[in-house]
């Protein structure tokens, strides 16, 4: 069609679509008259118009919030993390072949080990962190812990070392194969294959968890299946950016689709977050769709936090009840519901692993049988381990909006934003409290409104704010918190003197506020949450830096 013709079509479409749906057909018949092409085009447009949000939603999201990968400047544009491209150089005994990529977790190169003539992947700590002793120490410690795991389902670590210039690196196996993500992209997996892969991933995770290592980022792209059908978990909890920077707990990395509810809240996570993510992957392998969906990250997060997943059996025929129960159990909102309270996957290992992992067999046929055995036994053990746990009562949730604290005097205005944000983040890690608004800006636009209006606007049960006073740049900080109920009544929850903290003790400030609020609105603070709450950064200087960083972020929003 010519542009003129299209303009005509669009013009008619606009007239027709503006009508009530039941009037459209008649109008269209009249308008298009003896022009069947026009009629057909308008009908086609009406059809996509009804579906426009569904069709275009993900697409619009992709173009308005493109992922890092699409945009990572590569090649001549300069490496984002690494000042120097190591391609062609020697690192330790390795010859670096090709730069694979860089991201929050490190810089990856493909390299050759000439002594053993094998290809390896070298992972470097981003250089801007490499010279921070604490970070380096942590990177090396985690890498060594991983290296000691030596589990068939965990990416093998060959060596943990340092370059001559003192930059730590990890040499690990390079696997050729296909990621689970690629498998899923072709459609749902056969039940036995999905089970096999989930069981392998579970075994790898169990080994890691038993050593106190949490992956934190289980997703299909991190699971590679070699040609022999062996699943390898990649990118294991190494040098994670969120550990390495003094980020707010609310900062999230990577895709949100596989995050557990506690991760979406920015809480510190334990091995049960991995179980959740495994559940999402499992679900997706079985059905080809993700259990928690939405047009954008915040919609997905909302679904993760609130929605019960539809049973996977709805999306495929003949799914056994046990498998369905298992998947749904892994997707319990409450971490305690996903696993035995005192147990880790270690229990499962003890019961299942001995039989499950067949000794190395040469024949491929036997290997396959061994794998199937492993699946069956592994699954049964996993079920036994997971299912008998009593359902814990759902924790009740109270929603709270934190409005930027009011500075009293010049000196306080530099720190209120940071204190407010930290308080929000600390509140968010209390079980039973949900802090509204994923960004301060959502709440911030309401600044100046009376508390009831804010509570109403956000649907909050409570509104928290405080007056913050500081007499001199280095002086003590005085905080007088105020809490309002949904109807705007001020809740007398602060009968004592104002909180008085001098700069050296700043890190304890917010946790005491959060603790007090939590007590008053009568919610349980879980042990794990409490442990987090009482131990923010112990380093006052770092804390100060974090606060100032937070302030910058705040302004940006």
């Amino acid at each position, binding site marked *: 069609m010519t*542009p003129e013709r299209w303009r005509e079509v669009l013009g008619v*479409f606009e007239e027709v679509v503006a009508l009530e749906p039941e009037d459209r057909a008649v109008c269209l018949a009249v308008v298009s008259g003896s022009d069947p092409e026009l009629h057909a085009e308008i009908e086609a447009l009406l059809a996509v118009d009804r579906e426009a949000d569904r069709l275009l939603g993900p697409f619009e999201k992709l173009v308005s919030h493109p992922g890092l990968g699409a945009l990572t400047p590569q090649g001549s544009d300069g490496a984002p993390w690494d000042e120097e491209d190591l391609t062609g150089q020697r690192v330790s005994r390795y010859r670096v072949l090709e730069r694979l990529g860089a991201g929050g977790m490190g810089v990856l190169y493909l390299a050759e080990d000439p002594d053993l003539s094998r290809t390896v992947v070298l992972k470097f700590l981003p250089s801007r962190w490499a010279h921070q002793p604490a970070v380096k120490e942590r990177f090396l410690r985690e890498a060594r812990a991983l290296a000691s795991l030596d589990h068939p389902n965990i990416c093998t670590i060959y060596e943990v070392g340092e370059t001559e210039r003192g930059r730590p690196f990890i040499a690990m196996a390079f696997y050729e194969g296909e990621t689970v993500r690629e498998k899923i992209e072709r459609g749902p997996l056969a039940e036995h294959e999905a089970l096999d892969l989930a069981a392998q991933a579970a075994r790898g995770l169990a080994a890691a968890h038993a050593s106190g290592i949490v992956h934190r980022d289980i997703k299909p792209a991190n699971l590679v299946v070699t040609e022999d059908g062996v699943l390898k978990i990649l990118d294991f909890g190494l040098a994670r950016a969120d550990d390495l920077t003094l980020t707010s707990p609310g900062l999230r990395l990577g895709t949100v689709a596989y995050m557990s509810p506690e991760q979406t809240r920015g809480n510190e996570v334990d091995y049960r977050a991995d179980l959740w993510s495994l559940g999402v992957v499992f679900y997706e392998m079985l059905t080809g769709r993700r259990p928690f969906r939405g047009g954008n990250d915040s919609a997905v997060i909302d679904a993760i936090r609130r929605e019960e997943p539809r049973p996977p059996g709805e999306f495929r025929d003949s799914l056994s009840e046990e498998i369905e129960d298992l998947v749904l159990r892994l997707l319990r909102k409450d971490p305690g519901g996903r696993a035995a309270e005192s147990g880790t996957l270690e229990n499962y290992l003890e019961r299942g692993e001995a039989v499950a992992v067949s000794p190395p067999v040469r024949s491929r046929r036997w290997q396959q049988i061994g794998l199937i055995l492993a699946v069956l036994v592994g699954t049964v053990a996993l079920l036994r381990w997971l299912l008998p746990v009593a359902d814990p009562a759902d924790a009740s949730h109270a929603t709270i909006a934190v409005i930027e604290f009011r500075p009293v005097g010049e000196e306080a205005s530099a720190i209120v934003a940071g204190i407010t944000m930290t308080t929000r983040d600390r509140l968010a890690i209390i079980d039973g409290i949900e802090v509204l608004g994923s960004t301060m800006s959502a709440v911030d636009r309401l600044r100046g409104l009376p508390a009831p209006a804010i509570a109403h606007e956000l649907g909050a049960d409570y509104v928290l704010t405080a007056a913050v006073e500081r007499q001199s740049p280095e002086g003590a900080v005085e905080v007088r918190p105020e809490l309002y109920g949904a109807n705007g009544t001020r809740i007398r929850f602060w009968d004592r003197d104002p909180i008085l903290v001098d700069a050296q003790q700043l890190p304890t400030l917010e946790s005491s506020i959060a603790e007090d609020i939590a007590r008053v609105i009568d919610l349980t603070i879980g042990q794990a949450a409490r442990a987090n709450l009482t131990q923010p950064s112990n380093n006052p200087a770092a804390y100060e830096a974090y606060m100032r960083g937070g302030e910058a972020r705040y302004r940006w929003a």
Partner: protein
Amino acid sequence: METDPDISGLWLKARSGDPGALDQVVPLVYEELRILAHARLTGERSDHTLNTTALVHEAYLRLLDVHEVDFRDRAHFLALASRMMRRVLVDYARRSGAAKRGGGWVKVQFQDERLLAGPSALAIEELDRALTRLEEVSPRRSQLLEQRYFGGLKLEECAEALDISLATVKRELRSARAWLARAIFPEAAGPSDVESAP
């Protein structure tokens, strides 16, 4: 914040019809957005996605003295910045595509980026092509989508930038989205003459 070239002044000149001034502003906006995008993607606090709306608005705040420009100027500037944002993204997408085609084995990835790169880069290139085609049919509808997607302009701002009524914005946005859905998902409208698909 930004002082060297007086962008506010140039911008006001461009707005009053000085094409030379506009020619000077355009690359500055492009460069600012490119730098902002780069910083967002590589900074310690990066969440690995860009929010194009936020970038365009940040560019506006950084480049223009908000005391010198009014609401109308603001909408026009955001429209221009949306176009530049589109260019920045298309440039990145093409480079990423080129890098990807360079190394075939990169299938197995340890990190998200190239896996994410595929969909994002493809979507951006696809949208760019579709908008270019829509521009032949209806430049205004094409701009409307550009402003919404790459600049996150509010409907009122689109109306101001395109100098049309709010009702027209709403009406044309609807047909533009239907056209786009049809262009990108030709199968979605059911059996239809393939030749006639936009």
